[in-house]
């Protein structure tokens, strides 16, 4: 491979046109002393064949492919039809810039318009943007959106049982603004938020309540009840966060729970695990929030000859125009990931999506039923879950349980102790459509063989 099309002859001719003898003359404004620093610390170039070997050698140190993983918690291993890779890797989709010249970007723009439409069909709400960085930053942007919409109320309530990383990111985003968050606790008995805990904390100064459903513990919250409490206060927003987007096709749309903003992570729509990124933040809301919505939005319009076409619209709210009064500083987002999601959603389609979501749940339900055989281990929340379960072990044994399963090449989810002391003896496991019956049986067997 060679990424320098200029030949020495070209360079010489071009220098003559410019009127210089050496290219270095063009750098004469740079401070002479630190310029042209020694490059000895850098390794030598690797040609294409050597490069491939080099990376293969390094990646041999990754032993995770030998393990059966039940890891979830905000990143999910789903089946991706081959067309998603094939179509999204076309150079015409991979190599353009943000579609600022819409006449030469209709491919990307129409695909994003279709993506926005499909997201709205899944959430049941009026509008959606074309991407944010990830679920955590989408949650932070949702809090900021609610605050703007509420005409600058300064406080937002956040459920305790949301993804801990999302919580962390919201705190970081708010730390230097005139705003604060207060926590609504969850009940370890049910895994959910209790209505009275929310009611006690709502007030006139609260811009909204952010909760996750299905929540971090895998349990589906009572969003209608939550929204009713929130809406007793003027201009307060009910915000639902979704970390496992594949729950959307199986459950009633969030709009039915009367939520105002739905935001979260759409990695489950056609993005591999990729060691954590790039993923796909999403946000969908009511049309009243349109002018405050962060991120890029694609709109339909007509051209000079009356043909339909698509453009980035409402961009005056964005950083490149509104600058310090912008709704967000986001510029480059995750558009190519949104394209992959669009291809995934359209390929799986109306029936495929429902079916795959159902299979996720059924595999999880299979585990829950089989886990009844395990005497010392208990699934805490057995109903109204989607595809994650909390498995509790006898006191002080969870570390050994995890390690023993790991020694049998099984990754039994994540430990909850660092995040929820109330559930310190528990693991959070995820089941997707990719797990076979044999995988789950092996897990049950390994769990059954664990001696306290």
């Amino acid at each position, binding site marked *: 491979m060679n990424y320098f099309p200029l030949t020495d002859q070209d360079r010489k001719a071009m220098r003559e046109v410019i009127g210089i003898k050496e290219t270095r003359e063009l750098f004469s404004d740079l401070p002479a002393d630190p310029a042209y620093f020694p490059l000895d610390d850098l390794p030598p170039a690797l040609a294409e064949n050597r490069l491939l070997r080099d990376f293969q050698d390094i990646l041999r140190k990754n032993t995770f492919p030998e393990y059966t993983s039940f890891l979830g918690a905000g990143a999910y291993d789903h089946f991706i039809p081959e067309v998603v890779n094939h179509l999204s890797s076309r150079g015409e989709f991979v190599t353009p810039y943000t579609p600022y010249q819409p006449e030469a970007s209709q491919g990307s723009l129409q695909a994003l318009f279709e993506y926005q439409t499909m997201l709205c069909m899944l959430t049941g709400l009026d509008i959606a943007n074309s991407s944010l960085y990830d679920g955590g930053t989408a949650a932070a942007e949702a809090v900021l959106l609610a605050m703007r919409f509420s005409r600058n109320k300064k406080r937002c309530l956040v459920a305790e049982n949301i993804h801990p990383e999302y919580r962390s990111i919201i705190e970081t985003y708010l730390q230097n603004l005139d705003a604060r968050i207060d926590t609504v606790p969850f009940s370890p008995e049910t895994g959910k938020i209790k209505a009275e805990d929310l009611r006690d904390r709502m007030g006139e100064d609260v811009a909204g309540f952010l909760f996750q459903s299905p929540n971090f513990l895998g349990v589906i919250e009572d969003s209608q009840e939550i929204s009713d409490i929130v809406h007793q206060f003027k201009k307060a927003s009910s915000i639902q966060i979704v970390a496992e987007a594949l729950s959307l096709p199986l459950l009633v749309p969030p709009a039915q729970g009367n939520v105002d903003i739905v935001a979260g992570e759409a990695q489950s729509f056609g993005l591999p695990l990729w060691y954590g990124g790039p993923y796909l933040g999403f946000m969908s809301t009511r049309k009243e929030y349109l*002018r405050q919505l962060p991120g890029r939005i694609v709109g339909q319009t007509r051209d000079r000859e009356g043909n339909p076409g698509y453009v980035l619209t409402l961009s*005056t*709210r964005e950083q490149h*125009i*509104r600058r310090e*009064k912008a709704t967000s500083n986001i510029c480059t987002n995750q558009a190519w990931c949104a394209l992959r999601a669009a291809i995934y959603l359209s390929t799986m389609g109306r029936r495929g999506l429902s079916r795959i979501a159902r299979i996720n749940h059924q595999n999880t339900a299979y585990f829950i039923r089989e886990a009844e055989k395990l005497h010392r281990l208990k699934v805490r929340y057995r109903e109204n879950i989607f595809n994650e379960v909390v498995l509790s072990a006898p006191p002080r044994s969870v570390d050994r349980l995890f390690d023993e399963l790991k020694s049998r090449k099984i990754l039994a989810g994540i430990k909850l102790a660092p995040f929820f002391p109330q559930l310190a003896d528990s693991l959070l496991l995820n089941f997707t459509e990719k797990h076979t019956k044999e995988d789950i049986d092996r897990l049950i067997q390994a769990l059954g063989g664990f001696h306290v």
Partner: protein
Amino acid sequence: MANCKFSKEHEWAKLEGDTATIGVSDYAQKELGDIVYVELPQVGDSFEKGETCSNIESVKAVNDVYTPLSGEVTQVNEDLEDQPELINQDALGKGWIFKLKITKPGEADDLMTRDEYDEYLKGIAEE
């Protein structure tokens, strides 16, 4: 438009007793380009002179509108919700934005008359 006075930020105020009708000048609408949306204040809002009370969105920018007088909002021009282009078409007439019950009548003296505003605009053009 005898009672029409102008601010340096290109707003106009037309006074009738203690009610002022407020809008942006023709120069402002030309600078903004095609207006696509107007965020109106709410009836009952109170503003001090110079505070941001509204903003106007065009295809290329969003601009804040600063009230040239202090007072309480008594009426807003709801036609602008569906027809923001009224400001482009008739900035000093049908494009009015809101009405205020003014609290400090003396402030009107600090604003420019039509002629003074036209002079001011000439000065800007020469910069």
